[in-house]
């Protein structure tokens, strides 16, 4: 089948747009992480994410993040239309650097946790969660 010039242009534009969309989400997460760490190097490990392997309901996914010795933990849902989940700071009254909550995951994705330790260093961990029914109302 031959395409008219108009159709070819539309297909080409669509293809480029598709390429642009997927990296865009990754850069939102990268920017937020860079803003959190100030560009510092991030080591792996030191923070643990407990989340179900498969979440039946993307609207209510229980997760727990724990980073002994951390001052602040930032959690991101890398595949959500809006990735930031929460930022939690632990004060002197906290007995541990652990937080449990429930989050919305739009689709199967990595949950990312970056922790700022008391000595100023940063650590991160990711956990892949499969989602059967997405939870962002979309």
């Amino acid at each position: 089948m031959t395409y008219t010039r108009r159709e070819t242009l539309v297909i080409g534009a669509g293809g480029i747009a598709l390429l642009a969309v997927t990296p865009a989400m990754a850069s939102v997460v990268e920017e937020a992480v860079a803003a959190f760490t100030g560009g510092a190097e991030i080591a792996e490990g030191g923070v643990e994410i407990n989340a179900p392997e498969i979440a039946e309901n993307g609207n209510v996914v229980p997760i727990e993040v724990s980073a002994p010795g951390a001052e602040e933990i930032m959690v991101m849902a890398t595949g959500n239309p809006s990735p930031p989940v929460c930022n939690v700071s632990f004060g002197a009254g906290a007995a541990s650097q652990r937080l449990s909550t429930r989050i919305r995951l739009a689709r199967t994705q990595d949950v990312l946790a970056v922790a700022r330790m008391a000595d100023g260093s940063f650590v991160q961990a990711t956990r892949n969660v499969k989602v059967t029914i997405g939870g962002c109302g979309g």
Partner: protein
Amino acid sequence: MADVKPRVKLPSSASAGEAFTIKTLISHPMESGLRKDGDGNTIPRQIINRFTCDFNGTNVIDMALDPAVSANPYIEFDAQIDAAGEFTFTWYDDDGSVYTTSNAIDLA
């Protein structure tokens, strides 16, 4: 908001330095701003954007929440005390409302 209701669960007493878990729940729709109603209009964002817990004036936890937190936010964490006193829990809404509740605790 009329029907926003906070609930907190923590022990009535604890030994000094002993860790215990505090569970909090507040009923709130946490509208992400991404949903559309029946007519196709986008339902505006309205979420609890911050939660803090203080004990006798010392901060225990300070959490910034984004729309990805589920409706009726459940927040669980560990605390410890060195004296009897009062825990104060505060939730901040996008629209400026502040919801707060306090629980007294004894030293065991």
